[in-house]
């Protein structure tokens, strides 16, 4: 294939050879966005073809994808009403017929030989997000003060920007490339800031909705997974009803996360947006008891079901005294508190467990006025699965920790708890296991003084709900984790019910995948074979930042409510970042959606130009080397070879206001004054560059000498007129 200049998906000129798969996507998207497909049916078919070709581009396609594309393109080509649809259908068919082996290669090798599909790769933060949010785009929009647009971008992939801005486990920040230089971008806090601003400005809106398609879907469970699925199905025109056993929506977001981390109003505001889309909620309705699958199918006409029942059951300690004395399950304690029962559970409370639920229960006890709150955990602090920040905040509020402590028995008298019998533990290697396990130390028994015990040792899925569904050995619902379909046709599932007690953002990602799976199931189009690759929503211009500023800006500290105040109220602990901090944080972003860290710039600078100015040590995932953008200017000559060879236009070189400016995704790496031709005024380049050229030329032969203040054109003209030998002109001063 010959190399040619082509326009890629982002409308940029590219030096890479065209890819027919990528071209097909661009053409389909252009037609869909252009409005030529005015009939909903033809637009719908075009969208289905685009989704399938996207699967091909991203290596998610199976053997049935290409026949399905052919069939749909045939339908489009035979459209009885629209010439544009017929044309598009024929183009897709011809493209597939002509380049079938390229399409097949994408399916079989999950690779684009031209690199064209790869160049649309999302940034690591976006790839890491279980919901696939286009992080660099919304971070940049927030930095520009365009909060409403930022929220629109987030809500394309996640209907809960505010909730996730407060409680997300932030996989994006773990994968943030900036973290390889110093600290990751404060993505979570920025999202919360934008959501709050958009709500307060009244610009938090729903995206446009498709026309109703007359199909009914029933969702069981109004938690993050269920509501997310409802949101995407409602946007696609489905009539969605959510059945919920509790009297309110939110699921574990509401009943599992205390108000001081996630205020109820935040959930209510975002859930209300779903109601605006026509999603109906039936609260206080227990699936399987108040209403059955058969009734919903036969009497109410629901065709598909999404089961998002969470993991509501708790594990027991299985120790003496547990049944005799009224101890509490942490998850029930948190749920009751969320629903309005805020009684102090005891004066001296002991909490068993080391996860976030244990920490939430302990911090809630402090707020309810318990005199002493202790967490007993059987391993050491290093192994605690709870968030480090949560543990630190709990300690600030007065929670005590007892590590390497194994429960033996709950002690009591007259039905009341009087103490907790424990043993000290040590971590030892067990045969056949690569992990250290806590083992009780003989004779180390001790009694901890308490009058209430709260257990937080994990949750499991309720196996009494929908027992017909096939379960895994972990008793979770068995699904295909790509399309989220169960062993019963038309029944899908996601969230904690599928993966066990997990995170809000995973439930959101599962709900979104299920909505796509349900839509494909209704339309008889093949399900993907690989998990989705996130969609880049836009390619925004970069915010210009000098290298010195880029390096000196630091991740902002989240301001917290004073510990003394936290002990007495359920007021939100994280107070949020201010506008200035958020804008500065956007300037720290490296825009990895544009710079793909392919390393071509480094190679050209080091190996071809022999300059080695680009010490970008953060490109390596496993072994990043210290990077300081400020040092690049020391060696850079402003030749532009890096920019010329950058496949994604991340590195740019521009001549502006008498200077040559080299920047990487908006970070100004070097700026040098330009030298102009003294004859015609043409730009000759920075002095360092001219020196470099002269040095190189001198290596070729001692007879060749170039001038340093006159351009080649003027020199040629001069020599043509006089026939004189070219000589070095006087050295430029300064």
């Amino acid at each position, binding site marked *: 294939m010959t190399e040619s200049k082509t326009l890629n998906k982002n409308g940029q000129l590219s030096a890479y050879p065209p890819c027919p798969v990528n071209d097909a996507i661009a053409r389909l998207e252009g037609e869909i966005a252009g409005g030529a497909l005015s009939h909903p049916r033809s637009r719908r078919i075009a969208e289905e073809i685009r989704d399938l070709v996207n699967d091909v581009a991203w290596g998610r396609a199976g053997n049935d994808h290409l026949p399905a594309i052919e069939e749909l393109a045939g339908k489009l080509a035979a459209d009885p009403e629209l010439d544009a649809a017929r044309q598009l259908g024929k183009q897709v068919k011809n493209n597939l017929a002509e380049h079938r082996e390229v399409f097949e290669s994408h399916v079989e090798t999950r690779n684009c030989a031209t690199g064209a599909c790869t160049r649309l790769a999302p940034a690591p933060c976006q*790839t890491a997000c279980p919901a696939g949010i286009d992080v660099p785009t919304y971070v940049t929009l927030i930095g520009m003060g365009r909060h409403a647009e930022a929220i629109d971008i987030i809500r394309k992939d996640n209907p809960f920007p505010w909730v996730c801005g407060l409680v997300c486990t932030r996989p994006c920040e*773990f994968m943030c490339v900036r973290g390889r230089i110093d600290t990751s971008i404060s993505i979570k806090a920025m999202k919360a800031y934008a959501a709050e601003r958009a709500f307060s400005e009244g610009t938090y809106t729903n995206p446009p909705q498709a026309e109703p398609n007359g199909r009914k879907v029933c969702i069981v469970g109004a938690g993050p997974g269920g509501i997310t699925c409802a949101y995407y199905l409602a946007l696609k025109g489905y009539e969605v009803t959510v059945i919920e056993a509790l009297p309110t929506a939110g699921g574990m977001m509401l009943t599992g996360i205390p108000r001081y981390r996630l205020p109820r109003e935040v959930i209510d505001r975002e859930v209300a947006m779903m109601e605006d889309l026509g999603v109906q909620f039936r609260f206080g309705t227990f699936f399987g008891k108040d209403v059955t699958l058969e009734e919903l199918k036969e009497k109410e006409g629901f065709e598909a079901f999404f089961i998002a029942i969470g993991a509501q059951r708790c594990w027991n300690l299985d120790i003496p005294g547990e049944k005799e004395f009224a101890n509490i399950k942490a998850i029930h304690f948190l749920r009751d508190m969320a629903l309005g029962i805020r009684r102090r559970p005891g004066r001296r409370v002991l909490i068993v467990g080391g996860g976030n639920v244990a920490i939430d229960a302990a911090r809630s006890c402090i707020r309810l006025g318990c005199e002493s709150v202790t967490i007993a955990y*059987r391993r050491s602090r*290093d192994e605690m699965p709870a968030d480090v920040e949560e543990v630190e905040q709990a300690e600030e509020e007065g929670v005590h920790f007892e590590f390497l402590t194994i429960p033996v028995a709950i002690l009591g008298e007259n039905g009341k708890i009087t103490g907790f019998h424990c043993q000290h533990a040590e971590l030892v*290697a067990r045969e056949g296991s690569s*992990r250290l396990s806590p083992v009780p130390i003989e004779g180390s028994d001790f009694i901890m003084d308490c009058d209430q015990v709260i257990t937080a040792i*994990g949750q499991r899925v309720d196996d009494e709900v929908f027992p017909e569904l096939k379960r895994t050995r972990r008793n979770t619902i068995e699904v295909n984790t790509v399309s989220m379909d169960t062993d019963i046709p038309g029944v899908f599932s996601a969230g904690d019910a599928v*993966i066990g007690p997990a995170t809000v953002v995973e439930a959101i990602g599962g709900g979104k995948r299920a909505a796509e799976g349900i839509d494909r199931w209704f339309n008889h189009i093949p399900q993907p*074979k690989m*998990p989705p690759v996130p969609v880049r929503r836009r390619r925004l211009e970069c915010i210009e930042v000098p290298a010195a500023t880029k390096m000196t800006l630091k991740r902002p500290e989240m301001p917290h409510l004073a510990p003394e105040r936290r002990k007495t109220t359920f007021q939100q602990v994280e107070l949020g970042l201010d506008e200035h901090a958020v804008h500065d944080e956007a300037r720290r972003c490296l825009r990895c959606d544009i710079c793909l860290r392919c390393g071509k710039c480094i190679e050209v600078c080091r190996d071809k130009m022999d300059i080695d100015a680009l010490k970008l040590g953060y490109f390596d995932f496993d072994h990043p080397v210290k990077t300081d953008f400020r040092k690049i200017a020391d060696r850079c000559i402003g030749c532009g070879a890096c920019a010329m060879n950058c496949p994604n236009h991340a590195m740019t070189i521009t001549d502006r206001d008498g200077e040559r400016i080299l920047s990487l995704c908006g970070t100004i790496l070097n700026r040098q004054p330009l030298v102009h031709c003294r004859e015609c005024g043409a730009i000759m380049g920075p002095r360092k560059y001219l020196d470099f050229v002269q040095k190189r030329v001198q290596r070729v032969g001692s007879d060749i000498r170039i001038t340093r203040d006159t351009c080649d054109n003027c020199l040629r003209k001069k020599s043509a007129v006089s026939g004189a030998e070219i000589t070095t002109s006087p050295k430029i001063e300064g």
Partner: protein
Amino acid sequence: MTTTFRRGQHVEVFQKSSDESWEPYMDHFIGLHGIIVDPDTSINDPSALVEVSLEGKGTHRLPQDSLRALE
């Protein structure tokens, strides 16, 4: 010798798991490096699935016997 996986720990998907939660598409993850995002949050069960962000391949729940720590 390790205890449990920790948040932020660098790991490698070094082998296929015989666990039922291992799906065919996960074969393509073998050899990839990633970061533990959410360990077995509640019961430190060696059979629990842990959430791992894999470089360039997204975030997934994987069985622990397919992972090894890199540090």
